[in-house]
């Protein structure tokens, strides 16, 4: 792989939620990663791991209160996004960095024509006339495989998969440099998911957009991503290329994710789940966050926090076992 420039780099990001009932929730803890130009990075983890919080922090959409960014820097084009004003961020959102949300049913305005919603987005962000925006919107619809004849239809006339394609068209309408896709196909059926993923791959090839793909589905990751970051309890426990993650799995949690999948090991009569539950984010284990569920847990894991060790170039693992 040739060396590429990083378009986005996150350094030591920590986000906590302060709630009355639960106390201080450590949602994201010291997360750092880079996104290369034209690259697709998968953020993989379970519910409550902090994936969506990371995405919202990048866009400056974190609800505050209860959320608060404690420290960290998010560099985009050499500037720290966290230091930008709300007005500046509004320009960056959509124009430079766009987001696709999980639920296609609620992300569109039900009383506005589909085409107009895309045109609105273009009109707001680019110096074009209304007519030009509408023409561009029709082009975007065709780009995602929807006939321009359906420009004047309303969201309820579209199926779930088509709605998600409209949302992707909207996100890409201002040719953003980075696309944040939060579980873009989780709500869709497999055959529709296949269509949407194919389309995303195609668009990425043509437009050269960098993508951060948030998902829990390792199958989707295998199909879409160049690099993968595994998130557990607000930390990145492993990061590397897809080959690193799938062929040279380093962290016990990542291994557990694979063995939990039905069909991964056809020989055994039972699945091998990860024992126990995700730790309470208000009350995390002091050192290795995975130690209480880890089958390789030893004394050292409970006494010392593991380093983020580079096991091979670009492949980092946060585990004592990897240090040796």
């Amino acid at each position, binding site marked *: 792989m040739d060396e590429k420039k990083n378009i986005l780099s996150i350094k030591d990001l920590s986000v906590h939620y302060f709630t009355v009932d639960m106390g201080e929730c450590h949602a994201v803890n010291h997360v750092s990663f880079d996104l290369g130009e034209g690259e697709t990075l998968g953020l993989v983890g379970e*519910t409550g791991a902090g994936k969506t919080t990371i995405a919202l922090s990048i866009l400056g959409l974190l609800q505050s209160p209860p959320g608060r960014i404690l420290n960290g820097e998010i560099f985009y084009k050499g500037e720290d996004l966290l230091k930008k004003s709300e007005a500046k961020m509004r320009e960056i959102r959509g124009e430079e960095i766009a987001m696709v949300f999980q639920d296609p049913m609620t992300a569109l305005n039900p009383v506005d024509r589909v085409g107009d919603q895309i045109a609105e987005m273009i009109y707001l962000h680019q110096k074009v006339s209304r007519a030009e925006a509408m023409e561009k919107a029709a082009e975007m619809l065709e780009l995602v495989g929807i006939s321009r004849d359906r420009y004047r239809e309303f969201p309820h006339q579209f199926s779930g998969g088509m709605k998600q394609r409209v949302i992707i068209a909207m996100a890409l309408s201002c040719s953003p440099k980075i696309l944040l896709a939060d579980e873009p196909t989780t709500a869709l*059926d497999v055959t529709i998911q296949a269509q949407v993923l194919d389309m995303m791959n195609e668009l990425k090839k043509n437009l050269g957009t960098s993508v951060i793909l948030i998902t829990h589905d390792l*199958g989707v990751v*295998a199909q879409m991503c160049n690099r993968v970051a595994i998130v557990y309890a607000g930390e990145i426990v492993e990061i590397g290329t897809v080959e690193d993650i799938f062929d040279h799995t380093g962290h016990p949690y990542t291994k557990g994710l694979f063995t939990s999948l039905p*069909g991964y090991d056809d020989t055994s009569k039972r699945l091998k789940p990860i024992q126990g539950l995700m730790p309470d984010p208000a009350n995390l284990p002091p050192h290795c966050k995975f130690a209480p569920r880890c089958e390789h847990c030893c004394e050292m894991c409970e006494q010392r926090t593991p380093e983020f060790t580079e096991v091979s170039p670009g492949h980092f693992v946060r585990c004592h076992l990897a240090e040796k």
Partner: protein
Amino acid sequence: MADILEVKHLKKYFDVSAGTLHAVDDLNFHIEEGTTLGVVGESGCGKSTLGRVLIHLLESTDGQILYKGEDITRVNSKRLTQLRHDMQIIFQDPFASLNPRMTIYQTIAEPMQIAGGYSKQQINENVYKMMDTVGLARRLANAYPHELDGGRRQRIGIARALVMDPKFVVCDEPVSALDVSIQAQIINLLLDIQEERKITYVFITHDLMVVKYISDKIMVMYLGQMVEFADNDELFAAPTHPYTQALLSAVPQPDIHKKTERIIMKGEIKSPIDPGPGCRFAARCPYAKDICRQESPALRETKPGHIVACHFAGEL
């Protein structure tokens, strides 16, 4: 082994403002006792409706359901009460399927209180035994659902379904709302329970990997109809219906070396409201010919036990 359930020409239609919705349309199949029938299909194919019709949560429109040879399509309330003990259901959403105002203990005890004839001590005993079986710590007896995570809530739902010792359980997407690591725990639990109690499952899901793992036989549904029915191994080795083929090829494999050629379907999904004649898959089928749009394909047995509803079954 003997069949526990046989279904003949089962239909369930709903009257909606736009016409008649064919949720389940002329299904024929049977399930052997102690085995698992996987029902696969995408949203809106009628698989959940089928599960509810089988256990009498919905009345069928037409057709017959035979339970151990007895026709239970129309039963009186006394027999229905007995059947409720034999036939149970596990729901998809572990958040919506539990009454937020009832403790774990109350939820699991309720079926016995309704049935009557249990002493307080017997109920106590059974509830705790059930909690042990499904892996819920006894100290949680007085906890409310909102205090627990999805996996534990799903265990409560399973305990409630199993406490009357049913013979036949419909599992309606019991793991699709759960994270992978928790999903594996629940699948293992369901398998353990089946081995121990010889329960028959109808396992409804959209997840082909899960269905492959848990089922003996698999039925693929499309818009209310059965398009393919076969043994687990046979279906995955030799999918015959074009829809099954597309479905299997669409599943993203968690493997970067196995590059499957995906069949991408074009076209709109036909409406299940008054669908009319012709193969319902024709509009999306890459092989569709004129006959497909005019005549409904009959069920054909391409190999013993492998049934397909396609005009060109075996030729594609």
